[in-house]
């Protein structure tokens, strides 16, 4: 169950920032999730409820924002979605360079929290 350590990490970070801000309750946690992570939103919320039980984040909503997979060309800087690349290699649609890297789509980032 790798979801559990992930959720513990999310809740730990949220609570730490809430305490630092002198807040008494966390109402919402915004998390950016790359589509390549394949996390199941329904499962994640129930793990979240479990992990936050009895903490100042109990009852908070976990808002997941999915980011799409995007490549960046290291030659010209263009970004583009992974398309069907029949030939095998991924190449930049603008300059045909094969020096491309994943720019987004695999992140798992706590963006912000709403607190009172």
């Amino acid at each position, binding site marked *: 169950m790798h979801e559990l350590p*992930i959720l513990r990490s999310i809740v730990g970070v949220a609570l730490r920032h809430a305490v630092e801000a002198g807040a008494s309750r966390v109402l919402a946690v915004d998390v950016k999730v790359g589509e390549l992570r394949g996390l199941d939103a329904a499962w994640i919320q129930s793990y979240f409820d479990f992990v936050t039980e009895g903490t100042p984040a109990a009852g908070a909503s976990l808002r997941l924002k999915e980011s799409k997979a995007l490549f960046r060309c290291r030659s010209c800087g263009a970004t583009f979605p992974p398309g069907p690349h029949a030939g095998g290699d991924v190449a930049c649609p603008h300059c045909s360079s094969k020096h491309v890297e994943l720019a987004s789509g695999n992140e798992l980032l706590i963006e912000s929290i709403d607190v*009172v």
Partner: protein
Amino acid sequence: MAEIRTIDIKEAVLSENAGLADRLRRRLMESGTFLLDVMSSPGAGKTTLLLETIHRLRERGIRTAVIEGDIESTVDAEKMAAAGVKAVQLRTGGACHLDAAMIEAALHELAPGDYDMIAIENVGNLVCPAEFDTGAHRRTMLLSVPEGHDKALKYPLMFTVVDCLVVSKTDYLPGSDFDLAALRAEARRLNPTLTVFEVSARTGDGMQGWCDWVADGIRGVADARDGALDC
């Protein structure tokens, strides 16, 4: 009623694990020890490939130890010991992955300076281990021919975090409908810089190229250490 405030955080999840993993990577670099993480589904051939690789690297004077994270039993650690390979068995208590803290604990039982390489046999699954940086300098996944070629779609994250894909048990290729070209295309769509090897640990086919890649990683770490000593 207190006002609702939004606090900007922008912090990666599991950053604590990532920080520890970075420290381990640096520490092992300083002792000139290459850490290799090997991941796959159960039975894809991790233990077999590691034994064969260690055997071949030994002929090149490379000393290897293994951290056994697979939970099935202690069979793998026993196989390593029987082959004269130092192995540390991790007791993961049913965990679905290894993390940097477990590797740090295992390293206490090894004197890293005694080894040119420490290989991690990760827990057998292609989902959870992808999330956790173990501090390895390079990460490899195995996909065995009997599992089928359509795995990149099922385990996308794993394909993006590894440096190398070993298609294992290629002795099963003749007569199978395993589409190597399709797998390569799909894998490199997710990870354009992925290195792919086709290997049969049974027949030895493709072992040379794979072992060269591992040896290259070992050399990279040794050079980095010597470079650091120079300045």
